[in-house]
């Protein structure tokens, strides 16, 4: 019964939404389902917040490895929650000037806004910036010429990278019909044109093949979930 209920809800919801896609009278049912999901997800935020506190307070209590970080998490979480809920530093809105809490919690100059602007945004940007270094280290490993395939990959990557720089364009700019009329047949070999050709033909073809496989996989997986054939996400192997 523990599995039957969710399975029935999944199947009913899924099939109704599929049918609704083809019946104009029911086409807003999808939006309705999305709203229901948003409500569920909003309620789940409380569940998530509770779990976050529980997990990190337990780590602090157990003095687990890295418990200091948990302390930072708990303090940051509670401080942000407090300034957001109490609307610290928020001026009343022009519409309701007599009510102290009538302003937006994200109002410019509020404590929440300061936290978002000067703590959260720089931290997020820092994490994202790390990606540049990881791309460099991954590229170094991926482009090692170990075998024929790796050499092909390296050569292609070299052309693409070079073809997108000014230096790449300048390197093959001499393949110009104005220099010699016969070059008119070879302009496709200019690095910027080769780059476009590789990206729009080889890369697009490979990408589409993967996309077709993914689309078919999604159809089959969705069908298995709706028919209750695949219940492994509920724990059944």
């Amino acid at each position, binding site marked *: 019964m523990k599995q039957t209920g969710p399975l029935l809800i999944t199947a009913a919801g899924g099939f109704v939404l*599929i049918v609704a*896609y*083809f*019946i*104009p*009278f029911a*086409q807003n049912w999808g939006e309705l389902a*999305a709203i229901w*999901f948003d409500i*569920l*997800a909003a309620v*789940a*935020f409380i*569940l*998530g917040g509770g*779990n*976050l506190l529980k*997990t990190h307070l*337990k780590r602090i209590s157990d003095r687990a*490895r*890295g418990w200091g*970080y948990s302390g930072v998490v708990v303090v940051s979480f509670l401080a942000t929650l407090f300034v957001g809920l109490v609307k610290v530093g928020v001026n009343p809105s022009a519409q309701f000037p007599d009510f102290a809490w009538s302003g937006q919690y994200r109002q410019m100059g509020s404590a929440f806004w300061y936290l978002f602007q000067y703590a959260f945004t720089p*931290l*997020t940007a820092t*994490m*994202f910036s*790390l*990606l540049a270094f*990881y*791309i460099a*280290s*991954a*590229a170094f*490993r*991926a482009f090692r010429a170990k075998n024929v395939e790796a050499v092909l990959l390296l050569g292609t990557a070299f052309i693409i990278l070079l073809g997108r720089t000014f230096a790449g364009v300048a390197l093959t700019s001499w393949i110009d019909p104005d220099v010699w009329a016969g070059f008119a047949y070879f302009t496709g070999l200019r690095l910027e044109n080769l780059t476009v050709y590789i990206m729009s033909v080889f890369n697009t073809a490979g*990408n589409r093949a*993967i*996309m*077709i*496989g*993914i689309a*078919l*996989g*999604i*159809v*089959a*997986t*969705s*069908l*298995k*979930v709706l*028919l209750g*054939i*695949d219940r*492994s*996400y*509920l*724990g*059944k*192997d």
Partner: protein
Amino acid sequence: MSSSLKGKGSAKRSIAAAVACAALFFPALAAGQAPAPPSGLTARDHSWDNGTRIDLQWTASADEATLRGYVVRRRSTVETNFSVVDIVPAGTNALTVGSLNREAGHLFRVTALGANSLESTPAATTAPVFPTMEWFDGTRVWFLFTLVLLCGSVVAFIVLARRGMPLTLRRIAGLEAVDDAVGRATEMGRPCLFIPGINDMNEIQTIAGLTILSRVAKTAAEYDAKLEVPTSKSLVMTAARETMQTAFLTAGRPEAYNPDSVYYVTDEQFGYVAYVQGLMVREKPAACFYMGSFFAESLILAETGNAIGAIQIAGTAQPAQLPFFVAACDYTLIGEEFFAASAYLSGEPDQLGSLKGQDVGKLLVGAGILLGVLGATAAALTGSAFIESLVNFFTGTMLT
């Protein structure tokens, strides 16, 4: 004589100046007459749609040969001014106007647009036309046909598999390595880490990821390995707990299940990445599984895992992230392999049958590509209007 000539020249110059001014301010005078108007404009509700389209048809202008096109205008009964809907080329005498409000009636006007940019008097509809909603959206009939064909083949092969039809699958190295990875972690006395992506439960990739978690958790339970699942969505946490609990039960070790090993971190993408990266550096898991929907965090996580020497298996249906996983992980489940994991790992005939059904889908897609390419080539080589209309029907109606 000379003065008279001078006078004539002056008069000519005055007339020329007047004509130039008139041409500047009244181009119609300079450029000629407006074209003859179209006639017999009719507007009808578009059949088998969701009540947002009206079909227009008119009889061509007598000056059709010299026209630039026709300007179609519309106003609803609640509006006062007509607005341009479309300008269609000469030779066109029908148009389907879409994105209409079905609560209001709509009036239309069509004018002929001459080569001199002058518009004719309009042909107009006299009574407002209301778009009506049908019970079935006919514009999606080919999509329904394709869906029925694909789903039908999946169901057919499931039925055949149940009846004992032998099915063979190619070996998927990434899935074969799941047990080895958990076993390695057990031997090294280090935990396993499972990341179910950063999307919520309404994403099919997250569900596919949880099906693999089921197998990883079962193996971890059998080997008595520690498995940690930090999630970025609380609904995923709840679902992953259910998955793990049942997997431990299936493995015969329900007492080993620890609900605290599945926990919520944050919804914020890079906050989640910061936590998981820190966890990886501190705990040094021996096996890392990335199964779900990933974005920019894919490479940050996989490179960190690579740096700590973990065996890494990834699976995603985000094409942009696949190269990153391929570069940094030991095994990567690419697209359809990721969705095939559940069937592959379970080995159940029902699920294996669904994979064969997918193969039929691939055959259909392949045949479609081949026919389309051959048709377009034949149309270009022969110039046949019939073949071109077939190709246009295939690409413009069946595939849209």
